[in-house]
Every structure is written in structure tokens, then in C-alpha cells.
């Protein structure tokens, strides 16, 4: 039996752990910065941006589940709230897109805190169901919305965008500046926001709040006895993870210049969960590694044509079975074994 609690007793090694994190971060960042200078393919740049989106959402979900032990299935709903809020603010109020993204992140935070409030007394799978039910209600009410809010040309538009969603509410403005290389501009913005979210997450996880999360996850009764306020901590983690998830949602909507109800789909949610689990739940780099692995696997699977989905499903199942602590957990096991 081995589990993620291993990170706790090794407190004495945080310094070296921090140094390793720094090293990995520097390496990844260097590669990420070099990418647009090396890669010419717009598709590849697009995949990198998509990868940053998924990694960011998975990192934030990992913060909730891997560190705070809250098994939420509402992650894509938070993402969608951020995206929808951004789109609607920009569409209806002509808000500057960057302001809209920031506002979207705040709205997502408030939404998520409310969900957190509802989940307060629940455990494990019950949290999963509640968060999922909330996400599903929002989705269903949006897609079945048929009331005309305004007429656009000859067709009616629902306030929520209905089954169609929103498009053309503004973009980063990179097409005007960079012309054909606009995607590299988008990449720079998305990368910047991603780095910011990783930085904040790292600081939080290595601060007193991070310890409180872990304590609640590993032994709730003990943590509460030690004076950790479950109510505050849980709300905080819901809100915190939601801020960056919502922001990513806004960036996503702006990059693709579209947001629609499809984003609530269970398949994108499960892809996020798979990323975190394959990479390593409860490890800082797990979701990032998981994103890289799954996106590369997906890319390779495209070569086998119609067997792609079968292969991808099997890869996910195999990864979970063969790597019970995820790739990063497996690496760190090997690493620690070598050290001791």
C-alpha cells in the first residue's frame, strides 16, 4: 500500500523538493518559450494552446481533489461559467475582452463558492454527484432555452445563447497586430496566464493553507481537532481553484471565439480527470505531465484512424491500472528509492 500521504512526512525535504520544482519549472518554461520560435505549424501551436487549457483545468481540479480531497465533477461547469461570463459580458455589454475574462474569473469564483457551500456536509462520491447534478442542471437549462431575447438578423438569440452559444464577441486582437502569426500571440497570452496560475498554486500549496488542505484530506477529524476550520478551508479551495479555472474558460472562449453548451459535455470532463489521474493525483506536476502524455497519445492514435477512440480508451484504462499513483508518483517513487 502506498499513497499520496507520503508527501506529508517528508516535510524535512521541502527545500530540495522546492528546488526540484524550480528546476522542472525552468525547464518546462524554457521549452514553452522556445516553442513558437521552433514550431511553424499552426496546428501544433493550436494543440499547445489546447494543452495549456487542459493542463490548467486539470491542475486546478487536482488542487481540489488531489490536495483538498474534494471529488468534484463540476470542474467543467466552472470552466464554462468563466467562458460564458466572458462571452456574455463582451457580447452584451461590449466589455473589453481582458476585463471580461477577469470578470468571468470572479463570477466563476462566486459560483464555485456557492457550490462549495452546498457540498459542505458531503463526502466522496456524494460530492461528485452533487457537483455533477449542478453542472447538468445548468447545461440542460441552457440548451433547452428557446425564448428569444433579441433578434439577430433573421434569427432569434436566447439570452443564454441556447443550444447555439456565443461566437464573435471579440478576440485578443492578435490578428490585427501579428497577422498570420496571430496564433503565437494567443499562445503568449495563454502561456502567461498559465504560468501565473501555476505560480499562485505553488505558493499556496507550500504555504500554511496548503498544509491545511492536506490535513483535511488525510484526516479530517484530526485536522479539525487541530483547529483547522473546515468550512473556511473548503470554501477557500473551491473559490481559489475556480478563479483560475474560470479564467481559463474565458481564455478558451476568446481563443476559439466561441463558447457553447458542448463544453459541459461529460467527455471533456472525463478527459480532464483522466489527465490528472494518469499524471498523478496529488502531485504538483502530475496534471502537466498527464496533459502531455494524453495529448501525445491522442495524436499518435490519429494514425490508426477509426480505431483511435478504442485505443485512447484502452490507453487510459491501462495507465490507471499500471500506474496507480500516476506517472509523477511513479517517477518520484523511483527517485526516492535511489536517494535512500
Amino acid at each position, binding site marked *: 500500500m502506498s499513497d499520496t500521504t507520503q508527501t506529508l512526512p517528508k516535510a524535512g525535504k521541502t527545500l530540495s523538493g522546492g528546488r526540484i520544482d524550480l528546476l522542472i519549472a525552468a525547464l518546462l518554461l524554457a521549452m514553452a518559450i522556445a516553442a513558437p520560435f521552433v514550431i511553424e505549424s499552426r496546428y501544433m501551436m493550436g494543440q499547445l494552446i489546447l494543452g495549456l487549457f487542459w493542463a490548467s483545468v486539470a491542475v486546478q481540479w487536482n488542487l481540489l481533489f488531489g490536495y483538498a480531497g474534494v*471529488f468534484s465533477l463540476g470542474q467543467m461547469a466552472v470552466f464554462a461559467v468563466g467562458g460564458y461570463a466572458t462571452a456574455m459580458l463582451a457580447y452584451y455589454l461590449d466589455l473589453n475582452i481582458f476585463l471580461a475574462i477577469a470578470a468571468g474569473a470572479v463570477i466563476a469564483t462566486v459560483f464555485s463558492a456557492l457550490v462549495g457551500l452546498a457540498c459542505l456536509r458531503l*463526502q466522496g*462520491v456524494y460530492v461528485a454527484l452533487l457537483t455533477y447534478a449542478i453542472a*447538468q*442542471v445548468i447545461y440542460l437549462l441552457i440548451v433547452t432555452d428557446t425564448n428569444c431575447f433579441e433578434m439577430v438578423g433573421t434569427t432569434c438569440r436566447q439570452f443564454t445563447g441556447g443550444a447555439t452559444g456565443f461566437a464573435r464577441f471579440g478576440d485578443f486582437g492578435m490578428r490585427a497586430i501579428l497577422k498570420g502569426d496571430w496564433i503565437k500571440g494567443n499562445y503568449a497570452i495563454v502561456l502567461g496566464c498559465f504560468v501565473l496560475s501555476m505560480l499562485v498554486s505553488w505558493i499556496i500549496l507550500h504555504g500554511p493553507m496548503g498544509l491545511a488542505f492536506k490535513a483535511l484530506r488525510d484526516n479530517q477529524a484530526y485536522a479539525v481537532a487541530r483547529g483547522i476550520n473546515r468550512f473556511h478551508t473548503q470554501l477557500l479551495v473551491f473559490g481559489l481553484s475556480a478563479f483560475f479555472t474560470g479564467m481559463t474558460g474565458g481564455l478558451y472562449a476568446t481563443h476559439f471565439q466561441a463558447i457553447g453548451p458542448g463544453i459541459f459535455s461529460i467527455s471533456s470532463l472525463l478527459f480532464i480527470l483522466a489527465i490528472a489521474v*494518469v499524471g498523478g493525483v496529488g502531485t504538483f506536476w502530475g496534471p502537466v505531465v498527464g496533459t502531455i502524455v494524453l495529448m501525445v497519445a491522442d495524436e499518435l492514435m490519429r494514425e490508426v484512424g477509426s480505431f483511435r477512440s478504442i485505443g485512447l*480508451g484502452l*490507453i487510459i484504462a491501462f495507465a490507471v*491500472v499500471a500506474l496507480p499513483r500516476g506517472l509523477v508518483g511513479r517517477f518520484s517513487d523511483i527517485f526516492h528509492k535511489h536517494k535512500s
Partner: protein
Amino acid sequence: MDILIAIITTGLTNGALYALATIGLSLVWGSMGMLNMAHGALLALGGYAVFSVATTLGLPVWLAVLAAAGAGALAGVILYICVVRSLIRTAGKNFETSVMIATVGISISLQNALLQVYGGQPLKQPFGVSGAFRIGDSVVPWLNVVIILVSVVVMLGLALLISRTRMGRAIRATAQNREAALLMGVAVERTYLQVLALSGAVAGICGVLVSSVTQLSPTLGADPMLKAFIMCVVAGLGNLPGAVAAAFGLAMIEAGVQFGMGARWGFPVLLMLVIAILIWRPNGLFGRAQIRRM
């Protein structure tokens, strides 16, 4: 009156389908703490098995239904041997999430394998009953009656199996206290295998019934599974009678709301009800307080 009968017919039929989907899911969840996300794909497998045996091979339909149960059971066994067994040993406290993700992977593969074999065009399910009978002015199709009957019979059979046989006792004992069951000499791993096989068989039959309404497409299990997931959690951990009650109750409410408020409100209202129930009773309506760790 006419409307009441329509609502009751829909509610009971959906309730029977949900209940059958739910007990398969709940059985596995209750005894091993595993949410089997491939359950929906097993439903689809059952539906297509009937098609292959009855339509393609031309064998009698009752034999085909047995084959569907067999195919489901076999899939359950394979799922246990290839995925669940090693996760139980290695995943530790992450078992709940790991097994969810792994079975999601299996489900994606299985669905797409069905797509490759049978193609994506919907196929006609050979299991079906035509005709209808009248109650006053309203008409109730025989198919709905058959669905309700078959589902009740399967559930009764399962209840007998669980409560009266040695295997059933072992399953219940394992669900209620895994360590104690081990000390009594119950081969817990074999019990898990039996549970998954049993649940697979129920899923196979459930798939036949579901597809007699929806017809065959590789994604036919997705919707019933989602509903079953909800019923299962609302009822509370592994509570089979509770799951059945929740399935029928919620299906009735859904049908009533669909008529009263409009079809678009059916599922959302049901979900809001679920949210309210969970906030009010954090362990479901009839739930045990704790998930027993593996």
C-alpha cells in the same frame, strides 16, 4: 384520466428501466466501493448481443436474451480480471477515482468497438412486443407492460439470489464488512468477480429492455447510466431496495413534471430534487454513513 394513465405508464416504464440499471450499478458500488462507469457500455453490449443472436443468427429471442445476460456477465468477468483486481491491490485510497477513470476508458473503447462492428446507423432491436390494450379512453402498449414485468422478475430473482443463497450471503457479508468476511473464509476476490459478473448479467438484460424502446446505437446506455448513477447515490450507498424505490419514485416525478411543466423541465427538476436531497441528507435517502475502504 387519460393523462394520468399516460404519466403512470411512462413513469412506471422508465422507473423499471432505471431501477434495473440502478441495481446493477448499486450492487457493485455497495460491495466494492466501485462506480462502474462502463455500466452503460455493458447495457449497449447486451442490446447488440440480442441483435446478433436473434437477428443475425436467427435463433429464438428468449435464447438471445440469455445470451445478452451471458455477454454482460462475461464482460463483467473480463473487467474484473483486467482492471479491477489490480486496482484493488494497488490503488489504495485512490481506488474510487482510479476505478472510475479506468472504467471510463473501458467504456469509450467498448462503445467504439460496437461502432466498428455494427456501424453507427441505428438498428432495430428484435426483442419487442407490438400492440396495446385500452384502459378506458387511453391506450397502454404491451411493450411497456413486458418491460415492467421482465424488470420486476429480474429484480426479484436477484433479490432471492442475494438473500437466500450462500453466494448471496457472501456478497452481502463482503459489502458490509470486508475484513470480517475474509475471517469467515469468504474468498473476497472471488466474491468481487461474482458481483461484477452478476451486475454485468443484469446490465445485459437491462440493455435489452432499454433498447426495445431506444433501439440500438452504441451510445444507448449513456442516458440510463447517468440516471442510474443519480438514483444510486440518492438512494444511498449500496442500498438495493432503496435504489429501486428511488428509481420508481424519481421516474414518476420526472414524467409528472414533463407533463405539468413541459418536457424541458423533466430532468432538470429531477436533478434539483437530487441536489436538495443531498444537501438535506448527505448520505442519500437511505444511505450508510461511510464508504468502507478497500
